[in-house]
């Protein structure tokens, strides 16, 4: 049987030390050994029984329960003061056989894969690559669990792909302690599975677009996500270029998503008619303290898979380790290595630092070619960090960047640097990638002590960021897993308008009042998202 250890704890913290947070119990579940229970589905069902037992135990003690993955979120979204549950060892995964696919499915069975909650992006990629497949997109790195990714909306810069949740096509939730509380959700307009797998995992099928879209970015509060069905695709290569271009040009591209200005910068990515290729990924790095005329951009293009790519282009992983324009905090730490650690001196030094060109060991610009898992590779712990990330319509990206960087200099200075990434719109009800193309403007940096360093607090900074976006009439969202002034009055409604009530209505219909309380947490309370709707409309969760 799957086993869970329960450890009394006093506190818990995020990977990047954004807490500490009070905690009573920390739970870890391990699957039954394969040698004792060879069938994957038997082990999966055994784990489901264990999860129902844990939910009942928490409920019997009138306590809350929240599962976590790799604890990469910097907000308190993963925290519950009663019981927190570590899922990373719950990592069953398999492909869907042809006879498991719905008759009306538009998905090919060969592209459908089912993963238990604790599978990390890295191991999913490892498994998919062994089948000649790939994830469609990931974040800037690969350590998050799949359930953690979709619960918080983890994104990369997939202009035409979207975030991690956007290739999830089915959800297996456990919404209570009873056998009938195991449900399988998918869209009724895009069914993926017939009844065979849901029957084998003893799940009630509910096909309902609105329910699925609400649960997809569920902020950890739509029940326990036991498994997800994803649509993968044939493996492909990514070719990555890093260039310094004029600021004006980088912003023009950001505002318009017209990549023609890159034709002169990346001449390899131009077609026979002289048109610039559309990148798979576009990212702009910004040191707001520097007067450099240029920004650094990272532009990545999708290419057909070639089994000889390492022989032709070299192994991409040494290059990704060596090169500095990876995730933003990695870049900042690399820059800061040569500076004193004192925050004011560090910021002073940043103002005199232009973002360097990225070069290989021979001093040449190196264009890297690799699979998705190699380009967006490991990112180890870089120290106590903060990150604030706002989503705006890409058409407003230049203006939003202007007001946020001005604030950062005037009200700070804050020890961090900015980047912008661009993501396709999500169907998930509370996805922060809600604009047709969302520009995620993020500042990552090192934590400071506002009293000792004489800088406004991170909370105050987060509040001021919201205020300046509102003052400039720039509609925005905030990344659920990043730092922000989450207690800003009316924040959820400001970001999502009527979708907030829709999300709460559906959650109220799916969960019993006791389970809604059990799966809530102080983060949801702060945002006013844990409220229950009354009366509940059972029609919201019928299978269509």
């Amino acid at each position: 049987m799957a086993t869970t250890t329960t450890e009394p704890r006093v506190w818990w913290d995020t990977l990047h030390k954004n807490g500490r947070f009070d905690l009573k119990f920390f739970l870890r579940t391990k699957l039954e050994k394969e040698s004792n229970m060879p069938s994957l589905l038997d082990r999966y069902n055994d784990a489901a029984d264990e999860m129902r037992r844990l939910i009942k135990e928490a409920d019997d003690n009138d306590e809350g329960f929240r599962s976590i993955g790799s604890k990469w979120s910097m907000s308190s979204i993963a925290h519950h003061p009663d019981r927190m549950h570590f899922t990373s060892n719950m990592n069953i995964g398999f492909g869907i056989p042809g006879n498991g696919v719905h008759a009306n499915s538009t998905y090919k069975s060969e592209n459908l894969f089912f993963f238990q909650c604790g599978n990390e992006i890295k191991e999913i990629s490892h498994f998919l690559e062994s089948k000649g497949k790939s994830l469609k997109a990931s974040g800037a790195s690969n350590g998050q669990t799949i359930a953690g990714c979709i619960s918080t909306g983890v994104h990369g810069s997939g202009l035409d792909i979207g975030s991690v949740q956007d290739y999830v096509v089915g959800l297996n939730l456990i919404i209570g302690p009873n056998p009938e509380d195991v449900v399988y959700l998918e869209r009724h307009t895009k069914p993926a599975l017939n009844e065979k797998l849901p029957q084998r995992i003893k799940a009630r099928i509910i096909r309902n677009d609105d329910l699925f879209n609400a649960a997809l970015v569920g902020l950890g509060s739509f029940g326990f996500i036991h498994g997800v069905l994803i649509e993968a695709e044939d493996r492909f290569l990514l070719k990555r270029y890093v260039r310094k271009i004029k600021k004006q040009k980088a912003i023009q591209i950001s505002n318009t998503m017209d990549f023609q200005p890159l034709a002169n910068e990346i001449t390899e990515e131009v077609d026979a008619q002289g048109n610039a290729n559309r990148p798979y990924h576009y990212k702009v790095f910004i040191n707001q303290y520097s007067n450099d005329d240029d920004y650094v951009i990272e532009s990545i293009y999708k290419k057909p898979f070639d089994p000889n790519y390492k022989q032709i282009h070299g192994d991409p992983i040494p290059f990704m380790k060596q090169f500095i324009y990876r995730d933003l905090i990695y870049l900042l730490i690399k820059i800061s290595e040569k500076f004193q650690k004192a925050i004011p001196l560090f910021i002073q030094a940043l103002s005199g630092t232009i973002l360097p060109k990225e070069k290989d060991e021979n001093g040449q610009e190196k264009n890297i070619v690799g699979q998705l898992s190699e380009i967006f590779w490991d990112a180890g712990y870089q120290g106590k960090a903060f990150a604030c990330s706002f989503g705006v319509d890409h058409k407003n990206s230049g203006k939003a960047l202007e007001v946020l960087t001005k604030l950062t200099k005037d009200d700070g200075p804050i020890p961090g640097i900015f980047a912008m990434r661009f993501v396709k719109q999500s169907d998930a009800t509370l996805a922060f990638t809600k604009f047709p193309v969302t520009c995620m403007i993020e500042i990552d940096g090192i934590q400071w002590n506002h009293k000792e360093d004489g800088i406004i607090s991170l909370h105050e900074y987060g509040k001021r960021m919201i205020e300046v976006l509102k003052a400039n009439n720039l509609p925005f969202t905030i990344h659920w897993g990043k730092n922000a002034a989450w207690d800003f009055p009316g924040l959820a409604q400001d970001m999502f308008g009527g979708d907030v009530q829709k999300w709460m209505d559906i959650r109220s219909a799916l969960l019993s009042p006791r389970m809604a309380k059990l799966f809530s947490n102080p983060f949801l309370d702060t945002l006013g998202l844990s409220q229950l709707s009354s009366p509940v409309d059972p029609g919201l969760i019928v299978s269509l």
Partner: protein
Amino acid sequence: MKTKSLFAIVMVLLMLSSCYSVRVKVTNGPGGEPAETETEEVTAGELIRTLDTVAKVGIATKENPINLPDCESGGLHAVEYRTTFGGILKYLITFGRKRTVKVKYVCNKKTNTGVIDLD
């Protein structure tokens, strides 16, 4: 007397301190065995295991390696080998018969992937 004490302190410090460490990591595996810890090392999030022993020649040789029985996955994700001045000194004094072994390692994450039959 003072000089002797100072020399002794310096020697002890040298013997305790590490000379260097090297970390080796597999790039194309499933990743390291996960752990929920509050560490602030670069390996945060991975379960670090430690082998700290003195190998005697004749017991641990190429034919009789030091066994690592505790990786459920059967594979290693990363190994950090550390040398210390004291370890080198012991090696020299014993003419190579005693070798200090300080190794930190991370096992591969145990995978649970495969195929299912829905018939």
